[in-house]
């Protein structure tokens, strides 16, 4: 039998931002036994010696006091370093473009943090993500948030049945504008706080500078696929497939884009034109696939997919294979498919799961400059 809200303890992961503040508020209004917990994953002291997490925690404290709920903090710096940051660096070293948010959700927020919440006697863990959970015949589906623009299922594609059975996303049914309005109406301390942008541990800092603190930059040549040298690059890890800015190649004709990398020779491939043919592919292979509702066979099926966050869905055919590998064929050629990023599958509103892009295929051949 389901417990009454007042007997149901919900731990809310609070970041000090407006989304998680409103998530806590909504649950409190619904009568749940709400506990706010701030998670610290990264030790970051700014130029004035102030830890940015301290400021955020102050906001959590203020909001929780407004809501009259207890608040605590928990430290996952070590787990974050081991599970997320190490992966992040390894992927860059391998010439790929990692997605630390997906990994953070999988390993930290919905694993270490969920375990922490459960050890506090929580029935559910709630976050301020824009996504929905729907129970159907004892199985849990994950649906896109109703605010299409904010939908975060892309980052949540690795969640399992077990996790979803213990998760609440109170913002899934509303849009961001409403969230701000609710926060303002209740005069929450975070009502007008700026949304955080970028990768959480890098924050507002210069990405290149940040990365160079951890990985030695190896400058090399920028070349066309035909081998013509077009200039120098600062280190392959600083560039992502399809990127235009920061190449510094002048001259006439269409602008230049990153179209690939050669890790062995430390060469950055560039080509002209947004629609440069070399940026296009017709299939991919991915690893570490997760199906939110486990698939029963390896029969191919059609659905839609996103290859990066905030992209329109594309029609694809999925061929599941053994060991969590999957082949995805595109209905139309896709531009700038990037190894290391997530491919996430949808059936309408329902997020089916996702995988990590490993190799990119064109005309039944791996695109070497993208592998």
């Amino acid at each position, binding site marked *: 039998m389901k417990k009454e809200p007042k007997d149901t303890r919900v731990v809310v992961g609070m970041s000090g931002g407006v989304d998680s503040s409103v998530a806590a508020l909504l649950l409190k209004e619904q009568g749940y036994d709400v*506990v706010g*917990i*701030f*998670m*610290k994953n990264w*030790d970051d002291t700014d130029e004035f010696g102030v*830890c940015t*997490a*301290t400021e*955020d*925690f*102050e906001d959590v404290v203020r909001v929780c006091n407004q809501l009259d709920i*207890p608040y*605590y*903090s*928990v*430290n996952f710096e070590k787990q974050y370093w081991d599970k997320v940051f190490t992966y992040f660096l390894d992927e860059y070293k391998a010439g790929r473009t990692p997605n630390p948010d997906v990994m953070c959700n999988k390993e930290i927020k919905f694993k270490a943090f969920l375990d*922490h919440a459960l*050890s*506090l*006697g929580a029935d559910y863990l709630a976050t301020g993500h824009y996504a929905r959970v729907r129970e159907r015949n004892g199985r849990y589906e994950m649906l896109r948030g109703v605010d299409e623009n904010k939908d975060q299922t892309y980052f949540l594609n690795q969640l399992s049945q077990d996790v979803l059975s213990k998760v609440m996303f109170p913002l899934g049914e509303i849009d961001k504008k409403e969230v701000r309005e609710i926060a303002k109406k209740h005069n929450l301390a975070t009502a007008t706080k700026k949304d955080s942008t970028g990768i959480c541990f890098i924050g507002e800092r210069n990405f290149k500078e940040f990365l160079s603190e951890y990985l030695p930059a190896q400058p090399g040549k920028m070349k066309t696929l035909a081998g013509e040298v077009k200039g120098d690059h600062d280190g392959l890890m600083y560039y992502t497939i399809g990127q235009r800015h920061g190449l510094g190649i002048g001259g006439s004709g269409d602008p230049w884009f990153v179209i690939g990398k050669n890790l062995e020779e430390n060469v950055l491939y560039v080509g002209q034109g947004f629609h440069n043919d070399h940026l296009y592919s017709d299939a991919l292979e991915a690893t570490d696939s997760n199906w939110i509702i486990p698939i029963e066979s390896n029969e191919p099926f059609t659905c839609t997919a996103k290859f990066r966050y905030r992209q329109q869905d594309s029609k694809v055919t999925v061929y599941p294979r053994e060991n969590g590998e999957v082949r995805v064929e595109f209905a139309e050629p896709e531009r700038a498919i990037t190894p290391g990023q997530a491919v996430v599958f949808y059936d309408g509103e329902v997020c089916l799961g996702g995988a990590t892009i490993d190799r990119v295929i064109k005309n039944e051949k791996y695109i070497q400059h993208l592998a």
Partner: protein
Amino acid sequence: MEPIYLDHAATTPVHPKVVKEMVPVLENTYGNPSSVHHYGRQARKIMDQSRYTVARSIGATEKEIVFTSGGTEADNMALIGVARKRENEGKHIITTSIEHHATLRTAEYLENEGFEVTYLPVDETGMVAVSDVQKHLREDTILVSMMYVNNEVGTVQPIKEIGELLQEHPAYFHTDAVQAFGTLPIDVKELGVDLLSASAHKIYGPKGIGFLYIREGVKLQSLQHGGEQERKRRAGTENTAAVKGLQKAVELVEQERTDRNQRYLAFKKRFLQILEEEQVEFSINGNKDHCVSSIVNISFPGTNVEILLTNFDLSGIAASSGSACTAGSVEPSHVLSEMFGSEDERTTNSIRFSFGNANDEQQIETSAKKVSEIIHRLT
């Protein structure tokens, strides 16, 4: 469940009799003690009476008491005041590595100002060795500052022995007696201290008031400038009601110290007894033979303070740990790190329970059972 307060070493509830003494002062005695009229004299009288009571309670004279905003200010006043006054005689200060941050951070500040500070180690029970003080004393040592009772583990330091040792040395001897005041009888002459800090809110008095004992003849540079209050040693209009509250709190300690110690000790024993009965795995950090009645610091193997304190609080048990965990940063307790080494797991799995007037036996039993339940659930 009604919450149970097991954090008396952090602060104590104000005794109802203290409140009763303070209210009329707030309501009626609003004069400025420095004023030369009826109202001023009424307020001044309160200051004088309180100063007398406080002085007498530690074997001092009224002239030797400076009221401060609390222990932290008293510690700052002692360390910085002495350092500034005596910097021409020497720049060496001795303290311990397990002091309260009020002393440690002030010592670090003085290091940045060009003073040299020796931080004495402690043994596994949190005890400083008298011989270590002797070993590190130098000709240019101007101050030795050592807490009387450690706030995290309750270990009572050999203040009297060190006081004796320092009789023959020109260095001043300061003790932070914030945790001792109220449980241990204190006589400054017997202890041989030149300066002593104490605070009202640890002894069922109000927050925002404490004092520094400054032995007659000891010169300090004052840190706060303005009017001539406290013999020019601490400028600022006095907090008369709090001063009155401090007086009452001290009087109550004098009357009840023995009873209180017996009661707190019984609480501690009962609490530990139940943990044992419930077969909880734990060990006690501190010194068995030299520990105040009210504090017990317990290590629970296989746990960590974050999860323990959160679980305790959600179950209505208020305790604390020396490990600061604000904003998600767990800093292992500096006291336990000094006792066991910073890698020892006891630095991050230990909880301080401190008993006091807010408790009764029923609460002790209820809380010990709850704690046992939580530990069993987590391990």
